[in-house]
């Protein structure tokens, strides 16, 4: 179980462009994420946070170095194989939620299961269960995303990410479009999922408060890890904000 969720990046670099127009997004990043860890990645805009997340998800390929997720070196995997890895083992949560605007809440959560071959009735049951777990009221299940608040939409997005029971959850600025109160609720949810489901969470944020939810925070600057901070490993610990 520990091996499956582990992430290892070995001397990973990612450059964009060619010749004199080369733009380094990541440079020689070494990173290991053990199973069930909640890792926060911080840094200013353009430091390479999202690039790092995309590399872990297999959505992008490094210019050099190795990315190993769940024991698989992504560079050795075909595009289809990486897609399968994401579908079965990785959940992705986006800053802008990215829910299908014309699908209902339930439909937005169910559809990944259809592609995993889960029968419709069972898929609905699992969707309803996960929606309940993230705090979506049953009455909201037939609504469209536009009828929900930002916080509700992000909960639905988290439900979609978890419905296939992945071992790894990648969250790219999950509270970026939310007010502080709602954002905190989302962070609490992520922490709870990490604790109760042994879910490995890698969260990118530029918010210092959000970063404290992680067991460990790494800071990126200009594509390099410049700092690493470890929090006490108490699953139930809750960080009290400095300002209410």
């Amino acid at each position, binding site marked *: 179980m520990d091996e499956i969720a582990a992430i290892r990046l070995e001397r990973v670099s990612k450059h964009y462009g060619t010749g004199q127009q080369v733009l380094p997004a990541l440079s020689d990043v070494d990173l290991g994420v053990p199973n069930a860890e909640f890792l926060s990645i911080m840094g200013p805009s353009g430091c390479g946070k999202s690039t790092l997340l995309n590399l872990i998800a297999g*959505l992008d390929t490094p210019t050099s170095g190795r990315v190993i997720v769940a024991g698989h070196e992504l560079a050795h995997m075909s595009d*289809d194989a990486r897609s399968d890895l994401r579908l079965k083992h990785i959940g992705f949560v986006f800053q802008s939620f*990215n829910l299908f605007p*014309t699908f209902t809440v339930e439909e937005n959560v169910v559809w990944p299961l*259809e592609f995993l071959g889960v029968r419709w009735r069972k898929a609905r049951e699992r969707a309803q269960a996960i929606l309940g777990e993230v705090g979506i009221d049953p009455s909201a299940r037939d609504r469209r995303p536009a009828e929900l608040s930002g916080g509700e939409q992000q909960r639905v997005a988290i439900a979609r990410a978890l419905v296939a029971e992945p071992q790894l959850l990648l969250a790219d600025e999950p509270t970026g479009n939310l007010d502080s109160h709602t954002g905190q609720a989302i962070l609490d949810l992520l922490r709870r999922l990490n604790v109760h489901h042994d879910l490995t969470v890698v969260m990118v944020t530029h918010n210092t408060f959000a970063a404290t939810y992680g067991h460990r925070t790494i800071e990126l600057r200009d594509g390099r890890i410049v700092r690493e901070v470890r929090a006490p490993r108490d699953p139930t610990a809750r960080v009290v904000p400095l300002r209410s």
Partner: protein
Amino acid sequence: MSAVLSLKMAYRRFRATLGRLALSVIAVALGVGLVVAFRLMNVAVMHAFLDATDAIAGRASLTVRSGEGLTFADDIIQTVAALPGVKLAAPLVRSVTFPDDGSGELLTIHGVDLTHEASVRVYHSTENSNEVIDDLIAFLNQPDSIILGREFAERRGLQKGKSIQLVTPTGVRSFTIRGLLEAQGLARILGGRLVVMDLYAAQEAFTAKGQINQIDLMISHDQDVDRVKKAVAAVLPGGLTVEEPASRRELIRKTIGAFQTMLTAFSFLSVFAGFVICYSRLGTVFESKAWEVGLLRAVGLRQGTVFLELLKESLLLAAAGIVLGATLGTLIGYYGLPYLANTTAIAFRLPLPSVEGSLNADAFLLGGLVGLFAALAAATIPALRLTQAQPVAALTMRGREAPVDDSPVRWGLRTLLLVLIAASVGLQRVAESTLLGHVTSGLIGLAICAFATPLVTYGGRVLLAVWQPLFGATGRLAAQRLGQRRRRASLTVATLGVGLAVVFLFGTLAWSFEGTLVSILSRSLGADLIISSAFVSGAYWSAPVSEHLLAELSAVPGIAIAAGEQSKEIEYAHDVIFLKTYDPVSFRDARVYRWPLDESLPTKPLELVGIGEAVMVTRAFSYRYGLHAGDAIALDSPTGTVEFPVAAVSGVPVENAVIMSRAVYSKHWNDPMISLAHVVLEDHADIGVVRAAIARQLGSKYRLSIRSRAELIDYFADQVRRAFSLSYLMEAIVFFLVLVGIGDTLAASVIESTREFGTMRAVGISRTQLFSLVMLEGTAIGLLGLFLAGVAGLALGVFWVDMQFPAILGWKLDVHLPAMFAFGAAILTLLLCLAGSLLPSLHAARLEPAAALRYE
């Protein structure tokens, strides 16, 4: 596997975008509808005409003929009847007539030997088949006796014993109805429009004494048909042929089939237009959902799976279009069937049968397949392009358009396309291949699509330079927005370009056809009046009139010359050509007819033709068969094969024709009729007075149409316009698609620009300015589409007139560009663009800035 086959996801996505895909559904439906309609109608019409052919053939095993509408001497009957194996040789006179009530309803005349007819051609198959006529002796003794189809008689309130006025070549005559045919056999096929009369009475009224149209042969059961056929052929003079009825059936099938193929091609043109529209709309819709594709890939769907999901959406689109199209096609088929049957009968001078429609499964299957293919083919490239995009990049495309690929590779492909077009045009000039011409036309259509993007790019810059001074900042912004949404704009411009180019193509064809005809007639016709029967026996051909009319015309005061003209279709080199025959004076006196010659023998070619020692061929004939002045031509006639030297190649008339003296024609083809009489007035004669005199003295006897030269030219020009009337339907469809296409494009553009417009309003732009902005954007797309259509339409039109039409028909036409038509079409297009832009513009103007800024 179940996910691969499941349509759930695709249905949800399709349901959400149904409004935006409505145009595509309609486009597919129109294409499918026309394919289904023409298939249903073609099958019904073909069956009806083949049944009519079979009914006319009756139980004959073999038929002796000399050609469509031609007659031969009946003295051959005895020779043929005496051959071993021939049980019965039944002569037939076949002609057409019209009731003298101005209805123009065409009746088929069958003059038969009533003592033998029942055994060959079943008109009346009940037990009392001999009692159709009460008294055969009385019937035969009265040359005005006829048997009429009961259906026709009942429609006119006619009964046995009543008389009916029929127009014959020798004038209006009264006939007495002495029998009625029940709706069986041939009478049923022709809807009762059948007149049966005694053979000799029919010869006297409609052909000439001793002349018949065909002999039907019954063979003894124990005889080999092929052997008898050879024996009959051996005794026939040159110009007569013996064939089995199946051959006739095959000829009808081939002749009508070619016409129906043209109609089917037209329906497939609609499918192609539907494909282009689908490609445009699906491309736009897919692009607007690029981020969704990114999401699907990010969540973990494979490229192939996402591609399939996009194709499934187009599958649902196809299904909707097919259902709608099948219904539409059935309705069009139902209401269009009588019209098509009538058009076919007129075009091929066949008796009009009763046509019954039926629902054929293969019509719907064909329509379904083409609809499916069009939608899936249209979706393939946009879907491939989207699924190959990087998921990360795609995810960032929400609310934005993917950048247009205008790389050197694309320009290389465009250049290659132009080179291919130039090469195929050059090859077409040499090869004169119809198929190559279609390929060239298809390449030009592709070029329209390929050059739409650069046109939007560079045309947008030109518009920017022009509109800024004209419309200020609003004009500048509108032109700039084109550049920001190049992909969507170029897809719509391409759609307009293809549709309108086809409109301009048909316009150029019609104008060139009409212009060429008018030009030729104006150059050739010399007579002051041209007289014909008031009735049309097929297409634009007047019913035949006896040549005695000429002598009667000559007796009218004020008339200097009355010259006859007769035209006939004959077989030549396994094809059908025209024999155009004129009285000798037509070749001597330019007041009757003028002959612009392309080439000729050095010694008085027209005189040689006039005295019957040579013939001329038309330019189209020379072009098609490679005959020139000085060559010889052999023609099969009912009296045998006749050979003539070719004295000249004439620029008139326009058809594939051999031109000869009517005296020669009449002698060899046994036809004393004329279709036109050219009348030259004496000097100082008043045309109005002479016209009135002709009408008074001869009009009621012959039922004549008396036209001046200008009126005849107008008449033929009108016939050309009627022939192209089918293009009006296509034009209406195109203009409808212009309206909906512009509206749909702008509606999508406005929705996606909601936040942008909110920003503009917040900055201070007024509602009126925003309204104008969107209207100008729609106008810009329309102008660019028109420009593209104009260039491509001109290229297509000139290509078709100069090369493809001659390859198909062998006719050389002059290029006449439809300037007024094009101008009118352009104005209409712009008006439709404005109309289509109206609702989206109003929507944009009504946006509330605060809500628009929050729009996601």
